[in-house]
């Protein structure tokens, strides 16, 4: 029976095929790193594969030569009231979106300082509608986002352009909260009052 050639070769082929299953693992996890994998290279004591920049060096694309854009400071060192790029409707909408993601959990959607996290025990930030902050230039807000303020941690994950967009949006928010209803064009007045009613604001 075992001299039956086709049978023998079929059996061999099947056995080899079955053995192939064993190859899966090495192809699955190849000897290369993905972000947030652990490195076993001895010199990297923290085992991170994503290496922090070495002190005194600048990574490509991370040269912050544009002081105004990156720090919010005017050439004389004061907080800038000028924006590094022009503020269009798109920028404001971007600012609104980013504000709602990054700031509203604490500062609240309207900037009153009563966000959800504050209700759960976070120290209460001042309202954006305090006089001190309504007069603060946008560069000040950019600076607070980048460097933090008091018990507020800095938010380095917010990109610099988004910091300016958020600042512009907060400035618009301040105007809107202190707006005189008479100045609102009649055709959008109903819309505006509906949007500021608390129950219409999504959590």
């Amino acid at each position, binding site marked *: 029976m075992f001299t039956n050639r086709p049978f023998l070769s079929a059996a061999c082929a099947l056995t080899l095929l079955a053995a192939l299953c064993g190859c899966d693992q090495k192809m699955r996890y190849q000897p290369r790193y993905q972000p947030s994998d652990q490195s076993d290279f001895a010199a990297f004591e*923290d*085992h991170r594969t994503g290496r922090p920049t070495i002190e005194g060096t600048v990574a490509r694309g991370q040269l912050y030569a544009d002081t105004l854009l990156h720090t919010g400071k005017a050439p004389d060192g004061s907080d800038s009231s000028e924006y590094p790029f022009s503020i269009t409707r798109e920028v404001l909408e971007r600012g609104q979106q980013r504000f709602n993601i990054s700031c509203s*959990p604490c500062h609240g959607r309207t900037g009153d300082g009563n966000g959800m996290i504050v209700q759960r*025990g976070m120290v209460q930030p001042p309202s954006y509608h305090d006089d001190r902050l309504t007069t603060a230039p946008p560069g000040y807000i950019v600076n607070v986002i980048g460097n933090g303020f008091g018990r507020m941690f800095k938010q380095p*994950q917010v990109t610099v352009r988004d910091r300016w967009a958020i600042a512009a949006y907060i400035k618009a928010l301040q105007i809107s909260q202190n707006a005189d209803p008479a100045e609102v064009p009649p055709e959008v007045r109903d819309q505006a009052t509906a949007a500021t009613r608390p129950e219409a604001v999504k959590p």
Partner: protein
Amino acid sequence: MAVHFEDGGKRFVTQLFSKSANSLARMSIIIGVFTLAGAGAVGALFYRSPYYTNQNVVRSQPVPFSHEHHVAGLGIDCRFCHFNVETSAYAGIPPTHVCMTCHSQVWTEAGVLEPVRESYRTGESIEWQKVHRLADYAYFNHSAHINKGVGCASCHGQVDDMRLMFQNETLQMSWCLECHREPERFVRPKDEVFNMAWTAVDQKALGAQLVEEYDIQSKVTCTTCHR
């Protein structure tokens, strides 16, 4: 079955097997086929089983981080923590600093958060266990999906219900292809990508419209994902 011998012109015919051998032979063929098919089926079941795919398997983490609590309870947007998801292939796990923006003030005494505080003090990363992991021979990209209106929930399920994170789908090729063949069945408006509660009123009409609007292609060539 009979065996024939040729011997000096004389011919003998001997009965080697009894009659019942016939049905035995048939039986063994049938049993053989069933065993092979059964083995195949068991193999296929195993291949799709959570044991192999890790679907629905909860991993123990250094900190019992609850998406349910932070997303549904506190209303925090995915992008507060997974801030790279719109611009890069990897969604990324938030660094300790992000937890500490709140937990420097909230739940500062909680024992469960000690690993977070320790990580912040020492600069050592928290060792989060990976929940999703594709085979390295497949390429995946988050931003390519987010910017074409594929919602997190379409792939990760109801994250806002998860006390502990688990993988909601098999992540096998057949699963990817199910959507890549007919993306119109799954896409949603870009504004709703991060909304865990969104459902379509009329997916058929909406899907067709979005595929047009966002120029969504059905990408099924092998090199889309194996490059």
